[in-house]
């Protein structure tokens, strides 16, 4: 993924595509607001117009002078790991109501930990150590939140 942004053609496509997307959002806002009353309509319409105007400006600037719209290079790194992380986090969140806080977080802690790249390979010992710290951290937060802060954390619903 890191090479993409240096390529002017890709950059142009990215800028134009995002510009179009925001213009679309602006249009959506304007149209969807028509059902509201006067007072509630004016602000979304204003925002929609603003978005469309800015998007048009963006597209025009991109076509005219592409140096004005840089896209920052990513600081390298593996796109695949990022995806794995996002998926893991989604799974964590989705299973939270079923597994509850204690089980869910202890489990996901070690899974996320294993997704992190590290120079040393994973041994049984390091996995166990991480799993243990995950469990202890989870319990610690659970205790602090439930008893000290009176925040009830999700409880498992499948048991």
């Amino acid at each position, binding site marked *: 993924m890191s090479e993409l942004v240096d390529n002017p053609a890709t950059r142009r496509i*990215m*800028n134009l*595509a*995002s510009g179009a997307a925001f213009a679309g*959002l602006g249009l959506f806002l304007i149209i*969807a*607001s028509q059902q*509201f*009353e006067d*007072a*509630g309509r*004016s*602000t*979304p319409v204003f*925002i929609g117009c*603003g*978005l469309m105007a*800015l998007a048009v400006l*963006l597209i025009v*600037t991109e076509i005219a002078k592409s140096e*004005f*719209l*840089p*896209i*920052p290079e*990513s*600081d*390298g*790194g*593996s796109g695949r*790991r*990022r995806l*794995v*992380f*996002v998926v893991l*986090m*989604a799974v*964590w*969140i989705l299973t*939270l*109501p079923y597994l509850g806080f204690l089980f869910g*977080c202890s489990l*996901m*802690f*070690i899974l*996320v930990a*294993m*997704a*992190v*790249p*590290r120079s040393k390979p994973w041994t049984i010992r*390091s996995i166990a150590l*991480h799993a243990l710290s995950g469990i202890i*951290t989870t319990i610690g*937060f659970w205790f602090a*939140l439930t008893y000290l*802060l*009176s*925040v009830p*954390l999700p409880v498992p619903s499948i048991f």
Partner: protein
Amino acid sequence: MEFLAYAGAATSPTILAIAVAGLIIGIVLGALPGLSSTFSCAVMLPVSFSMDPTTGLIFLGTVYMGSTYGGSFAAILVGTPGTPQSITTTFDGFPMAKRGDGGLALSIACISSVFGGIFGIIVFLWLAPPMAKFALLFGPAEYFWLALFGLTIIASLSEGNLIKGLVSGFLGLALSQIGVSVVSGDMRFTYENTALIGGIPIIPATIGLLCMPVAIDLIANVTHHLEAPMHARSTRFKESVAAIWARKLNLLRSSVIGTVIGIIPAAGGAIASLVAYAEASRAAKPDDRYGEGDPGGVIASETANNATVGSGLIPTFVLGIPGTPTDAVILGAMMVHGVQIGPRMFSEHIDIVYTFVGGMLLATVLMLPIGLLLGRYIYMAVVKMPKTYLVPMVTLMLLIGAFAIQNSYDDIVIMFCLGVLAWAIGRFGYPAAPVVLGLLLGPIAEQGYAQALMIGRAKQDVGGIFFGSTVSMVLISCIVASIFLPPLLRKISTLQTKGMRNV
């Protein structure tokens, strides 16, 4: 002076112990992303019931002060704001930490917070009644211009990428439209989803928009999270004092900005630190590196947000109007404790006020050694922690932070979705911070505009409402200056350089 007599009462061992406890609790809660000062005070409210009114107030006050400072810990070390007031601390604090200056950033944050905190309290002590009148100058029109001014700050935060910054800001504005419209009663853009009925909640949104991209990037590389500092165990105290002294104008200006904005009802530390940061970066000299790790950014942000703690109490105590969102909790606490609030406080309960101020001053001064000590240990812990522990830990904290304030699972989902969105638009070159700004300021701008319009129409003098007051005109000039001044100044300096070359 009777102040000393009552304030002296605050030096009793019990009160001192409770104040220090409140400070530490506040710092810890504030450091956890998502646990805002308002939440921390609300959660500690029942604890304060077992204390007498004055002590209870001091306790809550120190939790407030501590949590405002504590937010800088997460902001600097993990790049995620611990409280909304420390959003701007991430802009420079985190880059500083990444290059090994985390200890310096933390010490600077500590000293700035203490300075700002004391400044705000002293203004409260000496200037409360006259300054309270200032709070009353803000009606809907003035809030509208204030919010607009806040939005123009987006321009100064998106150097070199103005259009995309503004697009992000407008995206934030669009998101702020979700939910019930205060001004018309319409339910907008919720599509019958109960999670969105209350609109996009600001704290989960902040965590998602600002913290998740950081977490996503953390996992991508093997390289260590923060560069290890050269001198492992020092707090770099002397260096931070020197850095602050070199920027004393910034320190003073940010204290004033924070104090003034704290007085404006409902404005709060987030807006104060934002304006202070913007002003500091606007006043920056050419070799300053705002946005890339300039100590001035941390100074501006932390001084301003702690100043609002003291000054926010001015309208709270004198007028019974909360100066900041957290002051609403403190007002509530006073009612529950049976302290008669409102204008009579300064006449009938001056002893409570003075003892309270005495306690707050003492605690804020103590925040310096406590903060530096805590800072040093936490810093070393985070620096040494391998990413394989850090990443899941941070992820866990993000989840808890999104959930805790309203016990809402939906908020976690919102946090996640916005986080992925922020990361995605970031890849296309759109900054995430302006989205938060739009989300925060959108409702203020909309309500101010619509209310002013309604009043103007009723009085048949719309122009008078919007442009009639001094405050409005001052704010409008600030807006104009903030839009046109930076390019103008740049033009002048390029002309100067050209002139110098010709000589």
